[in-house]
């Protein structure tokens, strides 16, 4: 008889405490969490970055990761995109009644490994259990606090004509890894989610250049949506070249099969950086030295024309507008 999470585990009573004390506390072990006070209390001085995200990915286990790893990396990356050093995370769970304890332990172990790599501490959390059918297995919310180093001022509104746009690697890996699970696609070389913490990569980039204007991670909505956001926020145009955008062969093939455009597929371990031309090669070189940036490439530049719009030069030399993702990414048959 496999152990399942029941409503009692979320009621705040004995079973709740047992769950937390037997599973979460020893796992994330740190002085702040061990106190088990209602709030984690700590001193911090400087400019703070604060972010939150909820994770509802289905299926919860996919090649290259799971919802636990995603929940930690996603929030760590949001902090990193502000140039912040991620420090503390909260983790909130909403568990569907009947969820397997072993699955929960697996997800949390994964979150722990991610937290270790990201060098963050999980200092506070919450667990709720809802009736069967009221949640899809497991939802996770994480909030994160980080410190922005002195002199670092990164914002989506700072892109400036003449800047170069650099992408840290191949696009579409995460979305396709998840879809492949859902659709039962087999790959001769499996596509894994690129889910990864990018804080170190960002720190190294910031160490190379103090002129970095924008940093953003192209998650839901893909590279296209992220570039559109930057273009709108900064009121500039962005021009990219189709041939320079790195896409894995198997991801391209899967996209063709499923009817997706890689430009719109989610990524969880990539970033886009906008930096003045003078520093571009330097930053690119540094990115290549990091394990999460080996396939970094300059994919385009910021221009004064067509503010708010992203335009791509196609292989044949024509131009076409790259719009934001509208609605959901539905598989295309036509």
């Amino acid at each position, binding site marked *: 008889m496999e152990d399942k999470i029941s409503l009692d585990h979320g009621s705040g009573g004995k079973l709740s405490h047992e769950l937390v004390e037997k599973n979460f506390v020893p796992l994330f072990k740190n002085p702040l969490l061990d106190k088990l006070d209602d709030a984690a209390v700590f001193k911090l001085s400087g400019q703070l970055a604060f972010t939150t995200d909820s994770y509802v990915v289905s299926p919860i286990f996919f090649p290259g990761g799971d919802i636990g790893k995603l929940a930690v990396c996603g929030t760590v990356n949001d902090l990193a995109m502000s140039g912040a050093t991620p420090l503390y995370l909260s983790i909130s769970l909403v568990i569907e009644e009947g969820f397997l304890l072993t699955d929960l332990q697996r997800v949390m172990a994964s979150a722990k490994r991610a937290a270790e790599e990201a060098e963050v501490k999980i200092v506070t959390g919450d667990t709720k259990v809802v009736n069967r059918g009221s949640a899809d297995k497991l939802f996770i919310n994480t909030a994160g606090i980080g410190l922005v180093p002195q002199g670092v001022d990164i914002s989506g509104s700072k892109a400036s004509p003449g800047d170069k746009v650099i992408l840290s690697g191949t696009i579409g890996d995460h979305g396709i890894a998840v879809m492949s699970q859902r*659709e039962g696609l087999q790959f001769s070389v499996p596509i894994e989610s690129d889910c990864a913490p990018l804080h170190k990569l960002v720190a190294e980039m910031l160490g190379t250049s103090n002129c970095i204007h924008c940093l953003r991670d192209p998650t839901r909505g893909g590279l296209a949506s992220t570039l559109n956001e930057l273009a709108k926020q900064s009121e500039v145009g962005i021009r990219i070249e189709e*041939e320079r955008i790195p896409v894995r*062969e198997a991801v*391209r*093939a899967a996209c*063709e099969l*499923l*009817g997706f455009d890689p430009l719109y597929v989610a990524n969880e371990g990539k970033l886009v950086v906008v930096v003045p031309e003078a520093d571009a090669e330097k930053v690119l070189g540094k990115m290549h030295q990091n394990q999460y940036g080996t396939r970094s490439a300059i994919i385009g530049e910021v221009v004064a024309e067509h503010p708010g*719009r992203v*335009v791509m*030069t*196609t*292989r*044949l*030399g*024509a*131009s*076409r*507008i790259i*719009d934001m993702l*509208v*609605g959901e990414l*539905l*598989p*295309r*048959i*036509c």
Partner: protein
Amino acid sequence: MRFVDEYRDARLGKRLIERIHHRSTKPVRLMEFCGGHTVTIFKHGIRQLLPPTIEMLSGPGCPVCVTANADLDKAIALASLPEVIITTFGDMLKVPGSYSSLQQAKAEGGDIRIVYSTQDALDIARRNPSKSIVFIGIGFETTAPTIAASVLEATQEGIDNYYVLSLHKLCPPVIRALLDSGEVRLDGIVCPGHVSTIIGSNPYHFVPRDYGIACVISGFEPLDVLLCIDMLVAQIESGESKVEIAYRRGVKPEGNQRAIEIMDLVFEPCQASWRGIGLIPESGLALRKEYQRFDAEQAFKIEPKPPREPEGCSCGDVLRGVKTPLDCKLFRRVCDPEHPVGPCMVSSEGSCATYYHYGEGYGG
């Protein structure tokens, strides 16, 4: 990817474009009939690269776009039946019917599942013996044989809970209807690629014969479309008109005989209602008497309300090539992919969606 990447080669594409520029002296109007070709043209910015002598019009070859409101209403009505699981291609989900859409019906509790294939629908039927699985059969001659095959497979296996709502349409009749209407003057047609994989090139002979219009069957990669345009220009410049195949690796003159046979075994031509065009005789497919039991319309009692068209929507004119999306008063102002008024904005290969996403009129 083999047989794909080679036909996207930038150098070969640029040279082909140059040749088209050299060859094209007369102003010509070409229609790319098939929505898939419209997407290729826009995705690669082909219109921008063609000489000013060539004008391209988009045609009604988008099976989603030409599905009549009344037919979509039937699908939505079926979705509300508790014993029915609707299986459909993703393209249909957001298309607005007279009062609702499949997506809305799904939100209201209808069991509607997106599938990639009738194979998936048959699987769902096998796994849900107490339910009735209805497949929304849209598409031209490329897709109809796959639905026909599923009907035969269901018959062979004794799957008795599988049904089809046949909304299939045929290409040659609508091409004729379009040309007969006299609304658009055309010099050449970029003929459908994969429809022709099934039906071959023979069914198009009436076009040069009766209308003096050049026909070239095209593939879907950018080099395929450019080669097709090059061949059309060559025909028109020399004053001849005939049917040619540019997509030789994918189309034989006789087509896929087995697919044609299977289609013919299960379906027979019938009158069909084309959104924006109206009734065209012998342009749709209905299940033959021997396979009537698969007909969802007959198997289930549905009484959808009288169909109605959205006000101000120009999809009909756009589909016939009489207007471009830019001519529609609602385009971008009211009608966009998040709030589509008509099907041309919803279907991934509808003209309006294509113009919207790829930015028609954007110069380099």
